[in-house]
């Protein structure tokens, strides 16, 4: 009987030379990806995990059992109810963004399973697809029990089925990344940029904050998911290496494009949770996690490939100081347009944030001062929520689909670009650059403003919130404390 090391190559290298069809018919460039190379160029494709089916099933079974054991021990409703309320709302953000996005990654991996250029790649992508189905079902299972207690958890399943503005942004991202993508771009953008880079913010950084918050269920869930990601992310490395050898400019373009797209998504998803909803147990700021996991570790990986930092590096470093603060302050004043509750940072929080983000905090702090003053003037309590809430229509970036929060309060970086008689607006220079590289991919998409102007979405704010975003008085976001902050009542000028 063969030992494992001798048997695995036999079980993974299964391609034969086609006699009755052309290779380009089996692997068309439009869906296998660019550059199109004959199989001879791919035949040495290999990754480091080299898992067999039997090993895969055994390992996954053990991991699932460990998740269920933690759920039974500390993941019940009564355990969640003991967590700090802001943290629970961070949990709602992640549960909604994660579950169905993972299922789209199953579809992306299945594209690799079918259109990957070597049998070993296709075998590993098959396991990747199974991983992603697991990552879909675990959060759906764990959050389902919480729906009967808090209907906002229903958005774990509902989020991507709505036209909520955050769902539009997330779908715009995942539709391109995982559903409509050729195999090469999918594996590089997902395995390299998302999974080797940004999901570490979730699965390592946020997991450590979950531990600090006493949310051992969330910690276990994401660390269990991370063990799968670490394995199937390896698919992207040999794909990137070969693309880099044959078309380095294209490889750099894919990294630059997807780094920026991930940056804006994770700024909201993770940046807001880490800096505003994680509470006093936070050990580091979002910027510090980014510097450790992205600026240092991820770019060290890219250096090893011989890739450069993106051309917009200085812009990125500026945004690292402020973008998610711009987003959160804006979002707070539109909190009834999403499915989780938010808080005003306390004076202690603001001191901490000033210390962590000295470059622009003064400008953001002035905005929070203004919001706090409105609570003081209006009076507090749930019935005053809409007195401290905006109703003007936000404007959205035609690339990332997030509100136009680029730059600083002093100088917003949005710019308008005309194409074929239509105006497009972008929050930042990199968003505009991504659009201009592939306008045929993006130009037909209508942001929320254009849907309203075209009569496809209600112009009336109340109808927009309920009919289009599918929120109800129970589920739409509120101030966690209804404005009743102890520190607010102690400040001068409080009523």
């Amino acid at each position, binding site marked *: 009987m063969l030992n494992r090391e001798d048997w695995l190559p036999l079980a993974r290298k299964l391609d034969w030379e086609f006699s009755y069809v052309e290779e380009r018919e089996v692997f068309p460039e439009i869906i296998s990806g660019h550059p199109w190379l004959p199989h001879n160029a791919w035949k040495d494709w290999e990754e480091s995990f080299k898992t067999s089916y039997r090993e895969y099933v055994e390992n996954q079974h053990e991991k699932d059992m460990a998740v269920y054991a933690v759920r039974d021990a500390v993941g019940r409703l009564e355990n969640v109810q003991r967590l700090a309320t802001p943290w629970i709302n961070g949990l709602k953000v992640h549960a909604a963004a994660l579950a169905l996005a993972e299922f789209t990654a199953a579809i992306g991996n299945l594209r690799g399973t079918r259109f990957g250029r070597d049998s070993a790649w296709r075998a590993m992508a098959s396991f990747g697809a199974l991983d992603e189905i697991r990552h879909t079902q675990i959060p759906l299972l764990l959050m389902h029990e919480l729906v009967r207690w808090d209907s906002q958890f229903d958005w774990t399943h509902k989020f991507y089925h709505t036209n909520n503005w955050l769902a539009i942004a997330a779908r715009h991202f995942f539709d391109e990344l995982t559903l409509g993508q050729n195999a090469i771009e999918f594996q590089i953008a997902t395995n390299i940029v998302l999974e080797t880079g940004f999901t570490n913010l979730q699965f390592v950084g946020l997991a450590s904050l979950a531990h600090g918050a006493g949310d051992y269920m969330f910690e276990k869930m994401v660390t269990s998911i991370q063990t799968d990601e670490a394995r199937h992310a390896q698919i992207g490395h040999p794909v990137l290496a070969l693309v880099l050898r044959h078309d380095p400019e294209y490889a750099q373009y894919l990294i630059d494009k997807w780094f920026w797209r991930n940056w804006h998504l994770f700024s909201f998803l993770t940046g807001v949770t880490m800096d505003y909803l994680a509470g006093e147990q936070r050990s580091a700021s979002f910027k510090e996690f980014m510097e450790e996991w992205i600026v240092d570790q991820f770019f060290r990986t890219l250096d090893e490939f011989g890739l450069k930092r993106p051309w917009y590096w200085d812009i990125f470093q500026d945004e690292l100081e402020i973008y998610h603060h711009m987003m959160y*302050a*804006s979002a707070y004043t539109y909190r009834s347009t999403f499915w989780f509750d938010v808080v005003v940072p306390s004076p202690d929080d603001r001191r901490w944030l000033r210390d962590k983000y000295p470059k622009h905090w003064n400008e953001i702090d*002035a*905005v929070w001062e203004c919001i706090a003053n409105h609570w003081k003037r209006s009076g507090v309590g749930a019935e005053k929520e809409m007195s401290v809430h905006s109703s*003007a229509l936000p404007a959205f970036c035609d690339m990332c689909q997030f509100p136009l929060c680029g730059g600083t309060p002093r100088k917003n970086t949005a710019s308008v670009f005309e194409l074929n008689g239509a105006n497009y607006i972008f929050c930042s220079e990199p968003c505009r650059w991504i659009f201009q590289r592939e306008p045929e991919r993006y130009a037909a998409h209508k942001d929320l403003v254009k849907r309203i102007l075209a009569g496809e979405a209600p112009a009336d704010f109340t109808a927009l919130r309920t009919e289009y975003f599918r929120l109800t008085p129970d589920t739409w976001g509120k101030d966690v404390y209804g404005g009743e902050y102890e520190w607010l009542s102690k400040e001068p000028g409080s009523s």
Partner: protein
Amino acid sequence: MPIPIYGFVEGDTMGVLILAEEGETICSLTCKLLDAVRLRVDANYQYEAVYQGDVLDPDATVLQTNLKPLQRLDLKRQHDVPEGSYNG
């Protein structure tokens, strides 16, 4: 027909959409935009409206200033003017 304009106010964290009527003055449009962002922006400044690099006459109408749909209009703080009230 109202003209949709992307409005940005210095001191704010985001852009908003406002609808400008052809016959209304820039002063009126400035007030409308400041009202839209009042939760986040200290109104105790004077502002001037800037469109494509030019400071607009507050008494001119939207039609006279030739504002185009889905273009950017900025309200810039007049830093050399003592705090008090804003234009209009």
